[in-house]
């Protein structure tokens, strides 16, 4: 190359941190199409998370339990407040609600198989209950969503629990959208809509508005199901103190709280990345609400949004949750985003690990699709086996940590077992910053 600067040093090209390449690419995409980006998955930005907390482990004042030998219980009961038949789970890791439509029938079957082997529950989603899922799930939670697609009293009675969905972490305040490409005959029939059209799921329930109405709605659902089923209320991580308080007031047996990292099948990117609070910031506020009402452990708290490891499970429980739910991690365990499909991800203009166009129905792994050929790639028996393995590892990891903290039940983990690595995490989780006995906002201290 011809040097026209007479050999004088030049500045190197510097990419703007504000107008980064991905940001610019999105501006160009928006300019070319006039449509916002819709995608699946959860927030991709880095937010304060469980990684910003550490366990302290045992010491002279706290003695540990022997790994593998001494008992460390993992069971949990959900729905003991009002329901005649609370749900008993062997492990505190549940499978979150994911819609049939977003996921294929065999993928739903695999979730049921894996969860049942591991002794935990699965959850339906928008679009109703499928035979695959009911048949293969020992414990199935039936979602009661604003769209009421497929809702009927028979399925309500076949369910083991009912989850009234007010919001989701990925999009608190947003409805859903299943694009026309994924509307097969079966999906269309279950939802009572023509094939091939985009199906919107309303953001608000059609027949109740505030907490007073919700209380009456819960009464109706309990009357229909003979007061047998636990009733959960699921909220996105928006105002966890007030939402938890109102859910308890309305009569919930269980509160499900989903942080902003939580996955979705299809939502506007701007919603996924910019609305809602990280789960780390939500748990203590929800627990505080339960404690203020004298309902902690009486009304159980299930949290979700970015749970990946047994450490995450243990940290969520140490902050006061009774159980956790997983969505994205379960799909990855089934085989979603597996590098073995790299060539096909490349053909779709993406790469394994980054594939998030779940709304398009062209998933090479055959999980987030209704295309018969792609679906056939996925083996629900093998998928179930993998999910069971993964759930076992989560549980063993959480137990390992709990024993090291001297706890004979995962529920005995407590905030005192933790320290925070960053000021942000300290403030959000109300956990002392490592090396100090202080967190921002600690009562009796100044900032």
């Amino acid at each position, binding site marked *: 190359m011809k040097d026209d600067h007479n050999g004088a040093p030049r500045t190197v090209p510097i990419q703007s941190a504000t107008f980064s390449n991905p940001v610019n690419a999105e501006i160009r995409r928006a300019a070319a199409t006039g449509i916002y980006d819709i995608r699946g998955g959860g927030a991709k930005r880095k937010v304060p998370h469980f990684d910003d907390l550490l366990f302290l482990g045992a010491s002279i004042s706290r003695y540990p339990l022997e790994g593998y030998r001494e008992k460390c219980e993992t069971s949990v009961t959900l729905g003991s407040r009002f329901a005649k038949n609370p749900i008993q789970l062997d492990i505190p890791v549940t499978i979150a609600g994911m819609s049939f439509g977003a996921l294929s029938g065999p993928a739903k079957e695999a979730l049921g198989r894996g969860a049942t082997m591991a002794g935990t529950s699965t959850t339906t989603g928008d679009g109703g209950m499928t035979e695959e899922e009911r048949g293969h799930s020992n414990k199935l939670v039936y979602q009661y969503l604003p769209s009421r697609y497929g809702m009927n009293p028979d399925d309500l009675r076949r369910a083991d629990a009912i989850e009234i969905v007010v919001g989701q972490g990925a999009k608190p305040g947003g409805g859903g959208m299943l694009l*026309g490409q994924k509307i097969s005959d079966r999906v269309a029939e279950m939802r009572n809509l023509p094939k091939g059209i985009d199906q919107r799921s309303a953001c608000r329930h059609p027949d109740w508005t505030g907490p007073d109405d919700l209380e009456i709605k819960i009464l*109706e659902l309990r009357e229909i199901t003979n007061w047998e089923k636990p009733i959960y209320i699921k909220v996105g991580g928006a105002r966890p103190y007030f939402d938890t308080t109102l859910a308890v007031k309305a009569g919930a047996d269980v509160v499900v709280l989903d942080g902003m990292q939580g996955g979705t099948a299809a939502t506007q990117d701007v919603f996924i990345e910019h609305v809602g609070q990280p789960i780390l910031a939500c748990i203590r506020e929800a627990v505080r609400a339960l404690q203020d009402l004298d309902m902690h452990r009486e009304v159980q708290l299930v949290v979700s949004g970015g749970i990946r490891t047994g450490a995450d499970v243990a940290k969520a429980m140490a902050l006061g949750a009774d159980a956790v739910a997983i969505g994205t991690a379960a799909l990855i365990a089934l085989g979603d985003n597996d590098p073995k499909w790299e060539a096909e991800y490349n053909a779709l203009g993406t790469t394994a690990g980054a594939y998030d166009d779940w709304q398009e129905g062209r998933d090479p792994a055959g999980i987030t699709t209704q295309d018969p050929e792609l679906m056939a790639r996925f083996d629900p028996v093998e998928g179930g086996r993998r999910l069971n393995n993964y759930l076992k590892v989560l549980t063993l990891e959480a137990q390992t940590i709990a024993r090291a903290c001297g706890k004979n039940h995962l529920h005995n983990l407590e905030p005192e077992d933790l320290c925070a690595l960053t000021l942000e995490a300290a403030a959000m989780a109300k956990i002392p910053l490592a090396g100090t006995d202080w967190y921002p906002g600690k009562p009796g201290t100044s900032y």
Partner: protein
Amino acid sequence: MQTFDLEAQGLRELNSSLHAQASDTNQTHWEIVNPKGSHAIAVGLDAPIEVNVRGSTGYYCAGMNKQATVHVHGSVGPGTAENMMSGMVVVEGDASQYAGATGHGGTLVIKGNASSRCGISMKGIDIIVHGNIGHMSAFMAQSGNLVVCGDAGEALGDSLYEARLFVRGSVKSLGADCIEKEMRPEHIAILEELLERGGCDAKASEFKRYGSARKLYNFNIDNAY
């Protein structure tokens, strides 16, 4: 005939007694007295029985009904016959908001007026209102028929899918993607049957039909708000 005093015997006993009726029950006639605006009366029924409610009810009367005929001799609160699957619900008086919301089947007849959001998100139910209906009725209505012998409020049929709306009187305004459509002989025939089922003496020829323009069916930025 079984008479049930709701005030004396309580809601739980009422609904569990009604749920205990099998499809071949010979206790086919039930009278509920003293409803006094209670919520969730006769919800989740699933037998070919006839239930007469002597008075007015609160929220969700006859919610998720299957097979049964529930006749309210009074007015009803919000969400009457919500998510009904089959059977028939008749209201002699007026209905509050969201009557027949998300109903999948069966017939809801309201002899008085219905408030806002009547037939919201309906999925196959037939709703026949002798009087007027309030704003945002048939919002996101998917299928089934809504017949209004009086007038309709603002934003009728907003974001409508395939439900058919028949209105005899005036429509204050149509919601997004809802348009007036031609009344062809097949629609007259459908409407005549509905009017007869609903006990209306109106003539089908006096009604106008409204339906979806189907412009919102696939996401297009020019239609977004």
